[in-house]
């Protein structure tokens, strides 16, 4: 609840229009979030006015326009340097409950791009569905929650934003009400999510009990000297890790992920495994650097949290990759691979050493990896959405020979698989390369080595898909491939192009990410 403080604010030099005549008012820094919220409400209004429309093209367009607006705004702000130290530092709103800086804008951009792909693809996935209006508004509002999560800098806003993401996600996963898989997934997601958000909020309450504030900056100040309450704060931090682990599908709260990604409608799986995961990492990055002294000289409550994350990262990536290697269904394989990638991204929190010179580089590389992952993983799940729509089947065998009937999409899928595995010509290679390199420079050889070994293993199961698509002989089931869903195709191709275009465009991405992450440690 934030009544705005009568502002005694610094000059607004940090906003983009500084180059123009009049600077934008400060609240416009929230523009991307507001664009998503406005799109969500507009979707509801549209559905109110035309509740019985059978077509969902208009809804899809509204949602896409909203998310593209959010993407454009965040891109513009990023380009203009909003919230960077060079332009006056981070912009704080609502009594510091919200901070707009490079990190927030970067992750907002990831979320907005994934949302765009997902809503466009959903037009064909949900065609002839009865009530598509709620689907789109839930997706866009959840995206708004994710963008808010990336900018939240008070534990209160973090929890509210987290629930803003979770609650629509539960409904989205169980969206196919007649489909037992979808319902089962929704139930599991909801139950595990409810338990972990209860654990998370209890953790917040313990941190609050120890520090007396919910603002990250105050928490950081209080963590310097906790006295007897160090234990309380420590337990609280661990419980908060559980909450982040739930959002990012990391050990020990990853159990929901395989079932949910498998059972949910494929666009929702794409949305959750890319955008939701990225938002979870955004908030974890911010909380641990700003409040819990990760990478600082002070070790909060006597624990080197980086080491904790290192252990979690190793366990997460190993578990995800090993389990993915033995799956028979492509979607479930991708679900486990998503856990594996959460492990890679965790390196951004793990390979941090106190006062390390490359802390910003590692975390920035992790952010860049999440960026690339946003495209390649969303694309892969959308390909599966297309296959689901054709009704081809779910296992590797069912995918045999898809390359003969849908060559364009199969090329795109090949790009996604090789990029996910980290083969050189694609975006996934660079992000992984920078990530491992950063870890090495910060002295975490073993972490990079485990990551590299896992990548070797991952190549095995990703190449199974490629092999099935291109090399194996087509089966009769492919007769079902009768249509060319335009929007879905478009989204898959755009994602593939983005995965490849990241190759020459990787410079700006990694630079932005590293600058944003370095500012956190500054």
């Amino acid at each position, binding site marked *: 609840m934030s009544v705005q403080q009568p502002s005694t604010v610094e000059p607004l030099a940090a906003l983009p229009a500084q180059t123009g005549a009049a600077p934008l008012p400060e609240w416009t820094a929230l523009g991307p979030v507001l664009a998503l919220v406005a799109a969500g409400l507009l979707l509801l209004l549209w559905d109110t006015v035309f509740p019985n429309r059978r077509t969902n093209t208009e809804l899809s367009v509204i949602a896409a326009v909203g998310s593209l607006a959010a993407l454009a705004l965040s891109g513009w702000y990023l380009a203009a340097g909003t919230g960077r130290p060079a332009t006056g530092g981070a912009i704080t709103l609502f009594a510091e409950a919200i901070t707009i800086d490079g990190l927030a804008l970067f992750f907002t951009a990831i979320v907005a791009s994934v949302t765009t792909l997902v809503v466009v693809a959903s037009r064909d996935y949900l065609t002839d569905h009865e009530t598509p209006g709620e689907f789109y508004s839930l997706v866009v509002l959840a995206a708004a929650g994710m963008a808010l999560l990336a900018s939240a800098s008070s534990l209160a806003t973090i929890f509210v934003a987290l629930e803003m993401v979770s609650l629509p996600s539960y409904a989205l996963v169980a969206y196919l009400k007649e489909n037992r898989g979808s319902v089962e997934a929704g139930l599991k997601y909801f139950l*595990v999510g409810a338990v972990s958000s209860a654990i998370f909020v209890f953790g917040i309450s313990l941190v609050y009990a120890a520090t007396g504030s919910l603002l990250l900056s105050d928490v950081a100040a209080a963590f310097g000297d906790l006295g007897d309450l160090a234990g309380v704060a420590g337990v609280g931090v661990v*419980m908060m890790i559980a909450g982040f682990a739930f959002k990012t599908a990391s050990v020990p709260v990853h159990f929901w992920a395989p079932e949910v990604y498998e059972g949910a409608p494929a666009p929702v799986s794409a949305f959750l495994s890319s955008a939701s995961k990225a938002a979870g990492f955004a908030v974890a990055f911010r909380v641990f650097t700003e409040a819990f002294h990760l990478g600082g000289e002070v070790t909060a409550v006597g624990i080197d949290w980086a080491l904790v994350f290192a252990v979690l990262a190793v366990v997460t990536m190993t578990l995800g990759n090993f389990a993915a290697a033995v799956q028979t269904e492509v979607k479930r394989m991708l679900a486990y691979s998503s856990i594996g990638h959460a492990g890679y991204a965790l390196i951004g929190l793990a390979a941090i050493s106190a006062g390390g010179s490359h802390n910003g580089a590692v975390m920035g590389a992790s952010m860049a990896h999440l960026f690339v992952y946003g495209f390649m993983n969303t694309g892969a799940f959308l390909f599966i959405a297309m296959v689901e729509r054709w009704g081809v089947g779910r296992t590797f065998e069912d995918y045999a020979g898809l390359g003969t009937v849908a060559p364009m999409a199969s090329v795109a899928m090949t790009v996604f698989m090789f990029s996910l595995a980290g083969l050189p010509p694609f975006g996934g290679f660079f992000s992984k390369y920078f990530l491992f390199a950063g870890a090495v420079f910060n002295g975490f050889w073993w972490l990079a080595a485990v990551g590299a070994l896992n990548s070797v293993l991952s190549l*095995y199961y990703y190449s199974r898909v490629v092999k099935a698509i291109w090399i194996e002989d087509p089966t009769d089931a492919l007769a079902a491939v009768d249509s060319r869903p335009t929007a879905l195709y478009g989204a898959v191709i755009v994602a593939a192009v983005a995965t490849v275009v990241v190759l020459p465009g990787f410079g700006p991405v990694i630079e932005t990410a590293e600058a944003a992450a370095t500012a956190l440690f500054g």
Partner: protein
Amino acid sequence: MVDAFAYVPAIVALPFVSFLVALAFGKYLPKGGAFGGIAATAGSFLLSLWVLATVAAGGQHVETLYTWVSTDGIAGGIGPQEIELTFGVLIDPLSALMLVIVTLIAMLVHVFSLGYMNDEGEPDLPRYYAGLGLFTASMLGFVVADNLLMAFMFFELVGLCSYLLIGFHFREPGPPSAAKKAFLVTRFGDYFFLVGVVAVFATFGTASFAGSESFPVLAEHALAGEFDAWTPFGLEAGTWFTAVGLLVLGGAIGKSAQFPLHTWLPDAMEGPTPVSALIHAATMVAAGVYLVARMYGFYVLTPTTMAIIAFVGGFTALFAATMGLVKDELKQVLAYSTISQYGYMMLALGAGGYVAAVFHLMTHAFFKALLFLGAGAVIIAMHHEENMWEMGGLKEKLPVTYWTFLAGSLALAGIFPFAGFWSKDEILYEALVHGLNEPLLLGAWAMGLLAVPVTAFYTFRMVFLTFHGEPRTDVARDPHPVRWNVKGPLTVLGVLAVVAGTVNMVPVQKVLGIEGIDLLHLWLDGHYGGFSELTSHHYAELGPYSSGYIAGGEVPTVLIGAGVSLALALGGLGLAWKLYNVAEPAEHTAALGGVKTVLYNNYYQDELQVRLAGVTAGVASAADTFDQGVIDGVVNGVSSVSLVSGDRIRRVQTGVVTHYAALLTLGVTGLILVLGVLGGWFL
């Protein structure tokens, strides 16, 4: 004047365009896109010749074409200093020579493929020619790379293409698994390479091969104390450079099929024979050796790495040669000989014989391409029968193939004056003169020398079984004729296999004292054009070795070395002649063991032969067992352990949501307990 170097990117781009064309329009083109590939590689070949001529006229070239990541100005950027990741080209004598070799072989393989693939009515030709184009383009990109990262990326592309081409006949059971094995085994090495690339960046902040800011030069300065290189854990610069060198060597060992990562290569024979020729002679396998030669200035700084390279090379040369003895299939014999010959090149590099290694790389490219294409011709003639025991007597039926194959075999066996003799002799000479002061190197030399008769033996066993004697099957009595597109490439390569040795007749020069006939030495020494830090005498100055001579001087050493290796080669040849150059070689061998009432001398000979055969067969089969059992066992074991443990891990996922809640609670509780104890929260 038009600058040849401006067209260097076109050398790489032309095969790539042919790849795209074959991929997109191959279906509509005559011959499945073959002519496009031939035209593209011919164009590349001509351009390469022009580049070679320009270098010969005193040119050299290094240029950054594209910078895709620059950490300029970012606080806390990766690495000790600012890093730029770039694509560029480096043209010096080495890469110019390699360009010509690769494009020539690629062109000939394209032509040959007309006979091997098109005339035989193989399906999916566009895919085949697209693969060949991409393969060639990747290798050329690798050759001209001016930095290690770019080299790594094209190295990986080469691996990917080999996967696609080895698995070309994917509908049969063998090729896909062979392709997978090739890909996985080489990638295993590549991961070391990748870590090595990162380490090079970390240490020097650059990965360029050439220039005063290149990493070999910086390493040289670092060892001299003039440059402060970053090292982990405060290691000594020399120790750390050794580690980095070994990491990168991992990639080279994988690609060049050196022990213990050689297992993929024999399996890779499952690919179409022209592809085997391309892989073995000019592209994939050569990539490893070329990589070591390319960054030789770095390797010569670390004696340990050099010794390891030499020893691995010598061991591989002998080990693979013994295994070649017992193979029944034509291409299998050639596969093991390839491993063995690349072992020689590694031996040369490790022994400080930079020129010798490049020399052998060149001659081997010619004669091994010749042998593979010859084998391809035989296979066409034999209606895709590869077992040598089913052949015999093809000499009269396939004269062109026979004579060219014979030239290649003589070169492979190292018989004077064929190309292989000169290069192999120079390798052994370098290893010997440097090894006289280095016991380890001397051991490597001894293994290399022992491999000489073995090589000659299996080579001529192959020749005799295939071409001599009486035809053993109906097919061999009436082979399928081959056309110009097979004979043409064979003839070109046959001539090269005979004469290529003349570019570097060092022994002649040393013995007779004629100056200026060691063209390759002068070439690689920057005599015509090139970079001063990439010349052979610069490497020799940096290198850890000094020369020693036997029998009182250089000339006797040259003569003795050449004489011994020639004698050994002839010995091996002679043994093969005795055993297999008869009408019915199999029966002859079988009879030896059973006949008791023969003359004493004969008895003695036969006994020796049988015993020798028994011993070598034992060694060979033991090596084979090791190969199949241990190496493959480890690879298979690791993958099955992974899969089994993956299966265990997924069993945790019971599908019951309350179990998840319980596990989640356990996990968080465990974390709290462990961290609480560590952090002293509960005190």
